[in-house]
């Protein structure tokens, strides 16, 4: 149901060690090492933003080891090696019983009595606790971290992409000019793609900062006065402001008599968003990735 995720909101949660430090650690790791595979997942909350739920303290390593062995022998063939579900058995990670369970007190009766197609298991109480330690070793959050990430986003046809580039982009850009060596300058494939789609846009969490886009310029003309041109600061329905080449800040109240011409260098990029197919995008990225 995420509305508009606000990482800052959660980041500033003043709570105990078990809460935010782990969460912040998750963020820091995610920010620095986007490719880090999630491992067992203990101690991280909401790596992608929303999340303020207590993380279970690390269990006894010996219990975890015993529980893992028990699980693999008895449970994995139905519920999957990672408890995320398999042939016949549902994911246990999102189960309300498992989430509410602390040390096996809720999981135990299910094992003892069976449930639906699941048979009874005759585990001893300490084995149930060990199994619970295994089940509670996984990170469970609404922003689930991906485990099997695709190795590349380069799936397009570079040759077709070159043709498309020449037709759609060639009037402003050239591979021997502004885009020379672009794939050497931008090595991250996704940053490369986002950067050509919309220069200056972010490429997502964990990505390097975007290359800066040229800001729009604006010319404002008051009746009977010479036009004033500069870099657009802001514009809303009531005020437009700019900074001239000399560094002077100017602000104007918008009236019907004020003439405003905004020149947005990204306008062609925005227009193209309505025209691309996804294949066009993938092909152009595959082509640009060859420009080393």
């Amino acid at each position, binding site marked *: *149901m995420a509305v508009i995720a606000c990482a800052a909101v959660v980041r500033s949660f003043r709570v105990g060690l078990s809460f935010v430090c782990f969460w912040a650690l998750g963020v820091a790791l995610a920010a620095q090492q986007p490719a880090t595979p999630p491992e067992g997942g203990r101690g991280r909350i909401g790596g992608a933003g929303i999340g303020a739920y207590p993380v279970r303290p690390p269990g006894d390593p010996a219990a975890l080891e015993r529980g893992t062995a028990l699980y693999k022998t008895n449970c994995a063939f139905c519920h999957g090696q990672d408890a995320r579900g398999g042939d016949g058995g549902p994911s246990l990670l999102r189960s309300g019983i498992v*989430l509410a369970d602390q040390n096996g007190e809720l999981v135990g009766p299910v094992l003892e009595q069976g449930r639906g197609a699941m048979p009874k298991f005759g585990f001893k109480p300490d084995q149930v606790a060990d199994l619970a330690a295994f089940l509670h070793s996984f990170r469970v959050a609404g922003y689930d971290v*991906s485990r099997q990430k695709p190795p590349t986003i380069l*799936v397009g046809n570079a040759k077709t992409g070159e043709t498309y580039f020449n037709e759609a982009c060639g009037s402003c850009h050239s591979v021997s000019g502004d885009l020379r060596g672009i794939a050497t300058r931008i090595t991250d494939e996704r940053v490369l793609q986002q950067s050509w789609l919309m220069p200056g846009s972010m490429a*997502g969490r964990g990505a390097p900062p975007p290359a800066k886009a040229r800001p729009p310029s604006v010319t404002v003309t008051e009746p009977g006065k010479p036009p004033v041109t500069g870099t657009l600061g802001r514009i809303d*329905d009531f005020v437009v402001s700019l900074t001239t080449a000399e560094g002077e800040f100017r602000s104007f109240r918008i009236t019907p008599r004020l003439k405003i011409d905004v020149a947005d260098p990204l306008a062609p990029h925005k227009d193209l968003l309505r025209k691309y197919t996804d294949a066009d995008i993938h092909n152009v990225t595959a082509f640009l990735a060859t420009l080393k």
Partner: protein
Amino acid sequence: MTMVRPASRLLAVVLVLMLTSALFAAGGLDPAQILKPLGDAWPTYSGDYTSRRYSTLTEINQSNVKRLGLAWTSRLVAGPGPAVAPPQAFGLRPSPTIVGGVGDNDFVGGTVVKGGVLAVDGVLYVTAPDNVWALDAQDGRELWHFYWRTRGGTHIGNRGAAMWGNYLFFVTPDDYLISLDARTGRERWHKEIAPFSQQYFLTSAPVVVGNHVIVGTGNDLDSPGYLMAFDPETGEQQWRWYAVPMNAGDPGLETWKNLDAARNGGGHPWLPGSYDPETKLYIFGTGNPTPAYTSSARGEGLENLFTCAIVAVHVDTGKMAWYFQTSPHDTHDWDSAQTPILVDGTINGKPRKLVVTASRNGYYFTLDRLTGERLVTSKFSDTANWADGLNEKGQPRRIPAKDHHVAGALVSSNNGGATNWPPQAFSPDTGLLYVPSAEAYAMYYLTETDPRGAMGLGGKDEVGVATMGSYITAIDYKTGRTAWRHRFQTAAGNAGRAPGLLVTAGKLLFGGDVSGNFFAMDPANGSVLWHARIGGVSNAPQTYRVDGRQHVLVGAGDTLYSFALYQ
């Protein structure tokens, strides 16, 4: 069940009525007041049960709106506050904060008013996550402040309080329904109404209908969403309606891969609904199915009922009367939870009882509110590209290739949607629905290639590309056509979406733009008549009258601003 003789039954009814009037005579809000057209008071989240946010007040109108000026501001200070009351001085709290809560955490992420403010008997009740304030409606001076120390939970917003007699009700991110004495701010009781262990969180404003306090859940993990009704005196649950099938044989189960998928399927109704007193139907929206993006575990192509739907339930039983799904098998976390609006209108020359809504997926719907029959569907977002038309039921037909792609799928809208929770407004004078809307593109990258998918909102990265424009869109409920659209001037490529709206019989449409301006427009054509820059407007404006003076109230961050004509 005990048999009751007719005479004693009559006596019982009379007694209940006498008790009820005695209760409400003692002050506070008689729920019957909410049935009246929206005027001096603002007694529920949307103002009245139609949720039109159309006020009959006309003291402030097109002829004098240029003279609208600041009456007062009130900055809301969240948190436990000082233990001892400070000396009364400007800007300082006149009374100590009442601290409750079962957790030991303080949320310090900033205070943003994102909900409805109740205005009853000269007092305003405003909320933020974990906080409720009572203010003097004349000048915003604080009367009391209640603070809830939290266990945690997603503190994304709180949509306000509800009132019954002298009782206030609100919910917390750590899953409590709390009742306060509205006169003092003292807690009456608190109840955990959803399991915190399953990562539920609560944001909705409760809605009082008769002797029901109705509120829905929120959760970003795979879990069932539900709507609940509670007894205002005791907090005992009266009924619960699940947004997804929970047991074998439940209706809608055939629209899921299996029971386990359904029971973890989401559909959280996280915003208040509307109420039709004639049919006694409570009409509301449900949220997205889960897992939100990697949807094959829900059953490819299956509708996943009753997620992303407009739903009507009988207010006394919680039994579903009808539903209409606005996004079958949603794959972008585009909830349909926005508050739908009840309109008495005319379709093809015939008077009809209608419900209208513009959905986060970029499509607008007019339904018959007696039956749920769909009458109109239209696309109000120019850029929405995830569907290739309508199916035979008038629902947008999803293009699976536009779910996501390993190399990115360029999709409009972005996750925020063509519209979202900010309240829409409807004017019977113009016959137009006013919708804060935005047109944005994002790349949706599939990042989880495990065929079992991910949990919750995982499995993808959504990376913004550009916002093409932010608008107020005015939609004709009879045709679904856009009558006018006001595009806000912006410099930035990611301008966001405007907050909610208020429309009045004074022929004024109030709202905030995306640049921090609070404005009044002509509801007939969207031309701006008045504005004041107060910084990020964060809720839908409201209006009320106290001691004969009309106020227009709006929140911007942690501050309430009240505007009135200079007298």
